[in-house]
């Protein structure tokens, strides 16, 4: 923190020096000169201490700064926590962020925000528990190694939402969490776009788990190697109104659903109990089950098509649409019949899936090569292409 702050000071000094020089030039005709110095313009509620030991925190975590969080942080109902681009937050002692107010993480493509732990293994800290949050926004933010137990031994989602709020998660990375990466247990309105989910869930947990009344869009996400389902669309059976109804399109789901065991196979996309939704242009490769629209889904209000199914393991091919479920192959679908047939042509990928991997192998790259059969086969309402990486550049930016 000190280091980054001094950097900022140096930059500021340079800037003032430059400005002063310019002023000098313009006023050089006169003899008099005025040199002014002001302190750096920090945000009104800048968080300047670099170690946060827990308690109520509000204000701004500064750009390009490094913080250590060593105790549970609570953002009170009337408070906000803003994290500026380039900030790095190391979380230790299994600490967590309890958001009762607002969180806004403002990473950028060039300067992502990073939340991580010194030990690069699942379950190091408690993530963002936004049970009663007012608003949750994460942009270009990496959130790694979450899922440490809560005080009563329960698992913790990377981002858990339990209130009816607006949730905006775009261009983020979720790596190696122990449980769900995003779990929404409320009638929230979600926008989950262009994120990358890698190796989440140890023996359980979905990358995205909507549990009730959720509405919104899930698109252009890349979801690899999750324990359970990549995207789960579910309406509480006890509170069926409002129902979950989301639009899920152009997601690339690869190698999901193996760590929970055959008794609870994970799905690429699961549309379950009382839920409605639209499921188009998704690329589903080597998931335990592919697209599962279960008998308890609100099938009358489910539409789907232009989904792409591929498997390199013969036994998985029978579960693209799992038998007994309501989902059936659509004429607009692209369904591979053998390894090599309708290969989506990832830039980098090896098979078969290895459920024990929690970090994506460096050679994996789910962009598709030119000539991929995914290109141009999408439902144009959403995109002309299938999968998260699209030729029009609107897709995933990672």
């Amino acid at each position: 923190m000190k280091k980054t702050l001094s950097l900022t000071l140096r930059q500021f000094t340079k800037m003032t020096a430059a400005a002063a020089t310019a002023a000098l030039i313009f006023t050089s005709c006169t003899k008099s000169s005025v040199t002014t110095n002001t302190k750096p313009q920090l945000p009104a509620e800048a968080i300047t201490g670099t170690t946060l030991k827990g308690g109520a925190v509000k204000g701004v975590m500064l750009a390009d700064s490094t913080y250590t969080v060593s105790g549970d942080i609570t953002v009170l109902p009337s408070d906000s926590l803003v994290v500026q681009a380039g900030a790095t937050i190391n979380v230790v002692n299994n600490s967590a962020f309890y958001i009762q107010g607002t969180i806004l993480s403002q990473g950028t493509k060039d300067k992502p925000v990073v939340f991580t732990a010194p030990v690069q293994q699942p379950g190091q800290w408690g993530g963002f528990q936004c049970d009663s949050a007012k608003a949750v926004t994460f942009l270009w933010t990496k959130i790694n190694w979450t899922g440490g137990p809560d005080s009563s031994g329960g698992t913790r989602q990377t981002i858990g939402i339990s209130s009816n709020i607006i949730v905006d998660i775009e261009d983020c990375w979720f790596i190696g969490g122990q449980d769900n990466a995003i779990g929404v247990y409320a009638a929230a309105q979600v926008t989950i776009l262009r994120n990358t989910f890698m190796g989440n869930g140890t023996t359980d947990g979905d990358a995205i788990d909507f549990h009730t009344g959720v509405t919104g869009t899930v698109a252009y996400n890349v979801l690899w190697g999750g324990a359970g389902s990549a995207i789960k669309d579910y309406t509480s059976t006890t509170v069926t109104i409002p129902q979950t109804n989301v639009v899920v399109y152009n997601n690339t789901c690869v190698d999901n659903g193996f760590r929970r065991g055959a008794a609870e196979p994970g799905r690429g996309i699961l549309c379950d109990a009382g839920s409605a939704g639209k499921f188009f242009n998704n690329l589903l490769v080597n998931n335990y089950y592919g697209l599962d629209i279960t008998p308890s889904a609100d099938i009358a209000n489910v539409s789907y098509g232009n989904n792409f199914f591929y498997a390199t393991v013969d036994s998985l091919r029978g579960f693209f649409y799992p038998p007994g479920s309501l989902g059936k192959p659509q004429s607009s679908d692209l369904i591979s019949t053998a390894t090599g047939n309708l290969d989506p042509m990832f830039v980098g990928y090896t098979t078969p899936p290895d459920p024990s991997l929690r970090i994506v192998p460096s050679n994996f790259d789910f962009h598709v090569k030119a000539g991929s059969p995914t290109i141009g086969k999408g439902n144009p309402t959403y995109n002309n292409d299938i999968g998260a990486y699209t030729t029009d550049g609107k897709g995933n930016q990672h």
Partner: protein
Amino acid sequence: MPGFYVRLQPQFCAKIFITVSYTIKAILLILLPVILIESAYSQTGKISGRILNAYSKEGLPGASVSIVKLSIQKAADSKGDFEIPGIPAGEYDITFENVGYDTIVQHISLKANQNLKLYAALDQKINTLDSVTIFSRFNKEEEAGARQREKNAANVTNVISAQAMVRSPDINAANVLQRMSGVTIQRSSGGDEAYSVIRGMEPRYNNTLVNGIKIASPDEKARFVQLDIIPSDILSSIEISKSLLPDMEADAIGGTVNMVVKDAPDNASFKATASVGYSQLFWDEKYIGFDKSQIQPLSPIQRNPRGYVTQPGDFSRSNLDFQYQQAPPTGTLGFTYTHRFFKNKLGIIIADNAQNQYYGNISSLYSVSPVNEAVSNDLHAIDVSNYNGYTQQFNNGLVAHVDYVFNKNNRISINNVYIYSYLAQTRFSQDTTLEGTGRTGPGTGQVFANYRSLTQHEHIENLKISGQHLLSENLILDWAGVLSEAGKRAPDRAEITTDFLINSNLTRTGTYFDGISRIWQKNDDKDYTGIINLTWRTKLKPNELEIKAGGLYRSKSRFNSQDMYQLNPPTTNGNGGSTGGKPAWTNIYDAQWSVFNAQGSNAYDPNSYTAGEKVAAGYVMAKFHQKNFDLGGGARVENTQQNFNINTQSLTALTSANIVYTDVLPSIYLKYRLSLKENLRLSYFKSISRPNYYELVPYTIRGVDFNEVGNPYLKHAVADNYDIRYELYPKEDEQIFAGVFYKRIQNPIELALQGVSGGQIEYTPSNFGTAHTYGAELAFTKYWGNFGITGNYTYTHSAITSPKILYYKANHDPNLPQIDSLHVNETRPLQGQADHILNVSLLYKNVRHGFFAQLAYGYQGKTLAEVAVYYQSDYYQTPMSTLAFSLEKDIHKHFTIFGKFNNLLNTPTTLKSQGTLVVATNIYRASYNLGIRYSH
């Protein structure tokens, strides 16, 4: 001795004052000497025989026989028998006496070597006690005495005597209570813990006393005491007070259950009992047990230094190794020894009763949810959990009592009751999804199998020191100091979860290891109570006025701790790399796991809290006694301070609170004597019910679909109670009671739907405006020669209004009070209320042959078992009938054999929602017990 109690049992003391000076001449009735002459060779003879109750023909234990001329006095044994050998031949006056009975003097002529048999039948005095005495009493253990106490009590009571309990099919207090008028027993699912519901009022509205003093609770959440752990053999009677007097603790709206433990003896006696039994269930099925030898009493962080990181090897395996075995028989063993020393000044009693029982249940529990709220409020089952329980319960009750009579005006007693209960239980459950993920049709879907082992030790100890002092002719002082302690230790409740899937083609996957949870739970509850009462009375001939005042102070502290560990399939393999997920399940010894929360949950566990309560009470009451009526009343003031402390991880949650309130509680009663055998009672009293300790603690327990949240703002309930009862006592052990009652309860407390937050339904204990309950009770006992019938019937109606979930668009009833688009108000009975309760017992007794038999039938009508969150969907226990049978036969002068046979109809309990949807079933099967009693 009993007098020593008197101050502490207000209804009893009231009785004394009612009867004081209300003298009716004793009536001598029958004297039946039978003389047998035997051969005569020595200069002495002996007398022997029995002292009987003239009406019931039952022996009178402890009655005395004396020969004044020889200064010989002897007490009859437990059957009323006596024997005095070595009496020189001659003429004597033999005196037969018993407290509460008329004295008989019989003149005899005894010859050498004669064994003169004498049978003295004593009549009970009508409205006894013609002089002021604080020590006299009726025999609490006899039914006839119980009737007298009901009759003479100032308030509305029902009493059951030890004699009736011994002869009933029942072996614990819970079973006994469920045959009493207006009482049903609420059992936790699985049937282990039993609490009383009185007049449709849940356990929270009743209090439990031992010898008139409130006892600490071994329950980790509530303040009430589970009744199934108290062996009925240590009790001399159970009294239910349905109306309160100012000198009684005020936190009872339904009623007060007072378990009167065997106390001060009049004479020396020794009784012992032993029985064996079996549950039908274990003739039908194997018992499933587990090894207890490796259970750790303390959790890993409790038994290791601070900072210890829990390791997988810290958890034992053998208590999750379940073994099928043949259940051992059930057994009970008990004795009571009484004696008086030093010219009867010092009395002691030691009684112990141990019960070791094996029982089980076969149960199903369904989760239900709306089929389609947009169309209707119909529910359907979405998940079924079939679970079997296999339980060993060992209960031991130990009573020790010492009293010392300094003189006729002063007496001090020490009484200690110690109850210990051990429970070991295996529960196997299989959870099958009926609707939802993984299910594609009938017989398919995910199945979670759970195997749980549990052991727990509970204890209750109640030590009371008390004294009674007749300060003057008009003034009585009595006092008591009580230490009551209770606790529970439930070390290492261990549960494995495994799962498998039945595919759409009905093939089954392998079984996977899902996880293990281990919970160490303990709680301690400690009360210090001090009580003092001063009674002043005067005779305004022929009337009497009594004024009584006193106070009580109690300080309670409670400490709860819970430490939970979650053991998950290993996250790393033997080489340190990540594993590929859940492993296949083989057995507990091969299972590998990681400790998910190595720090345990103790620091922030919602069940780790401390709580305290201080109650200070004072009262003044007066009673005017006149020939035809008693009029009494007064007021009690109770000041309550409750507090709690809990660690919460949430920065904004409450961590402690101090709650203070004071209630002024008036009461008034009139007992009008329509005739010598008839009373008409009218009473009004105000009483309260305090929230349970745990309910105030701001915990949150997150379930899958339901959260349960504590409520520090919960208020105590206050009730106005009205009673009218007509009583007829045709003969001394017969009765007919008919009464009606009405209660108006402000701020009744129930676990309520707080709201729906997203998909999570939140339950919280809440107050609900005003509830009303009214009903009628009828109780009767009647004998025809050797045959008798006893029974009771109660009708209860109650109404409370609370919010329920209903998607209003789907409902077309414009009169329904709508709260918002998803909620309406519904009026329903109070939780736990049954509409009709009927108990009828047929009795046969043949004193001559020492034979007694009882066939007990019970009917419990539709009972609101659980309040559902959905409109018109509460879970009702369907009406049920139970049948039990008991009999006993004297086989020898000192021995009696007996049999107790319970649940002969194999009555299941069934809970239904919306009329027909089954939400739970429990099957227990019959149980049989045979035993032998010795008494001397």
